[in-house]
């Protein structure tokens, strides 16, 4: 037991007393995440602002006073709307293609008369360029205006007054204070975080375990210091256990740090609208997340260690662990698709290491977590990890593996 603690302390000492290590494991990744998400957030904001201030250049064929009156209003910026002759329509289409104009609206010449006399169904044509963001935006806005504002204006004319259009309301109580939202405050998850966070946690944990694990195991062989450890009377299993525990602790700390940074930064970067303005989870849910992270970290650490023991050098160990990194990414991506189907997964899926953990995290963040899946996941992950630990202890006893450098 003393050997376990001694090895454990030494590995932690190596990380925490080494400023370079400390910086590259904990500080730098967080810093990079803040910068990246900050930049993304800033740019999205800027883009949205530019888009909302832009006034599109719109050309209208066969405009009448009545049409102009129907379109006028506070909704759209009409400063760059011009009326043109039907003859110029083809030229305008070319301009739109070349992104020199944004929109062409063609009214039939008999538009007003057709509506008034109920003679046929006049069709309005709106031409735009989907490759040009301003044109595409203008299209959406004008389409909506046509179908709503202009349509109502003509309709009101036909039935004899705008007040005749109001026939019923939805969700409009006289007191105006009533809330129709029935979501449980504690459970209100956000789809964005439910998708992103599990994926990132699953991958960040692995990359942490990978960079530390290959160094602690294969690095020790490469530096030739493993033999001196094996020459002490300490049990091989104690040496293995000490290293595994230290690795788990470091991996959990780094993953927690990264996750917290992300949960804080993502809403900032993606805009409140997309993420539902952050999210809140209960203490119980937080504990579940932490339990999943610890179990998953321990599993990863075992995998990386088992693979690294067979390598002679850190480089070799890294090349051996890369295929596992790919598997982890695949598991993460699969859960991204899954997060849209709300809960109710087959319970056996939760028993699959990595994939089950990501499923669980996704459930928790989207507010659909069930204790069953959580328990199955944590217990299975830990069980498989302990089996791996036993294999690792056996391998530590194998001279072909340990003395091959």
């Amino acid at each position: 037991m003393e050997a376990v603690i001694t090895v454990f302390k030494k590995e932690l000492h190596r990380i925490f007393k080494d400023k370079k290590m400390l910086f590259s494991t904990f500080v730098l990744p967080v810093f990079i995440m803040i910068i990246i998400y900050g930049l993304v957030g800033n740019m999205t904001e800027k883009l949205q602002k530019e888009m909302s201030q832009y006034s599109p250049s719109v050309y209208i064929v066969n405009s009448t006073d009545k049409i102009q009156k129907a379109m006028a209003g506070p909704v759209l910026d009409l400063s760059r709307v011009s009326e043109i002759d039907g003859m110029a329509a083809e030229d305008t289409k070319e301009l739109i293609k070349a992104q020199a104009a944004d929109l062409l609206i063609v009214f039939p010449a008999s538009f007003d008369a057709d509506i008034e006399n109920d003679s046929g169904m006049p069709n309005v044509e709106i031409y735009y360029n989907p490759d040009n963001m301003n044109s595409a935006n203008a299209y959406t806005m004008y389409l909506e205006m046509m179908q709503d504002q202009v349509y109502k204006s003509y309709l009101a004319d036909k039935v004899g007054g705008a007040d005749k259009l109001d026939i019923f309301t939805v969700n409009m109580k006289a007191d105006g204070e009533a809330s129709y939202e029935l979501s449980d405050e504690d459970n209100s998850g956000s789809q964005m975080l439910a998708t992103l966070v599990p994926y990132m946690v699953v991958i960040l944990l692995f990359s942490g375990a990978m960079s530390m694990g290959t160094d602690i195991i294969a690095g020790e062989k490469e530096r030739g210091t493993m033999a001196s450890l094996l020459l002490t009377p300490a049990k091989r299993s104690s040496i293995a256990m000490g290293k595994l525990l230290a690795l788990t602790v470091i991996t959990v700390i780094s993953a927690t740090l990264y996750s917290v940074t992300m949960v804080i930064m993502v809403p900032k970067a993606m805009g409140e609208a997309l993420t539902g303005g952050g999210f809140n989870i209960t203490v119980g849910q937080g504990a579940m997340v932490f339990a999943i992270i610890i179990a998953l970290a321990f599993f990863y650490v075992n995998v990386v260690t088992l693979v690294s023991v067979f390598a002679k050098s850190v480089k070799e160990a890294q090349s051996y662990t890369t295929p596992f990194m790919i598997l982890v990414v695949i598991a993460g991506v699969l859960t991204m698709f899954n997060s849209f189907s709300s809960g109710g997964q087959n319970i056996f899926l939760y028993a699959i290491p990595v994939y089950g953990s990501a499923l669980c995290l996704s459930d928790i963040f989207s507010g659909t977590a069930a204790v069953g899946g959580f328990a199955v996941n944590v217990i299975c992950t830990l069980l498989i990890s302990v089996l791996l630990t036993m294999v690792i202890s056996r391998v530590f006893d194998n001279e072909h593996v340990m003395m091959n450098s």
Partner: protein
Amino acid sequence: MIQVNNITKIYKYSLKMKRELNTKETHRKAVEKLSFTVKDGEIFGLLGTNGAGKTTTLRCIATLLKPTEGDITVNGLDTVKDAAKVRERLSLLTNDVRLDPQFTPDYLFDFFGHMREIPDDIIAARKEELFRYFDVNRYADKKIEELSTGTRQKISLAISMIHDPDIVIFDEPTTGLDIITASSVLDYLLDLKKKGKTILISTHIMSEAEKLCDRIAVLVDGRKVAQGTLPELLEETEADNLEGAFFKYFRDNSKEVERWRL
């Protein structure tokens, strides 16, 4: 006392090694039917060329490797069945010192003390004594990576002697060291002998064997071809010195004689 009883050590080549060595062989017999006894309080030398099987033999005795056949006892304890007990009484030193570069001698000494479950006060006393003997106190708080090879060797020696072992095994004690450091290492081994330790070294340096060893075993291609005190070996080969004796043994026994045109 170390008793090596008829051991054979066969290495299995991994796929990668086969590729690197460009060979079709799957096994390599490094040591063949080797027996010898190191008596308490003597310095015993294994003399052999590169690849003769010296390191392999020493690692088997130090429990890092298991002999494929035969067995070894150290103070009556079997190196396979009682490996942990053997490790408690023995120390294996090598010339290529491998200490974690980021740690200080002070930390590493305590670390290995705790790995051996030695009480703190005894660790402190041993550290004081050994650091003073090797004159490395002023480096105690520097990182290993900042120290010279000679200093590292001394620190490694100090750490290896932390548990005051009865049996000291040293694989090529002076290879790679300058003559000043080398001679201080040899003096230390003679010092240990005075204290009654049992010492086994491997070497291919004749003068070292002549100066140090009470008895010598000559290894050629993994087999023992001669054993005795220096005068006994000289008499048997009618040579003037160990070097002459060694050449004769090598010529008479090595499969590689043709290649070397001896």
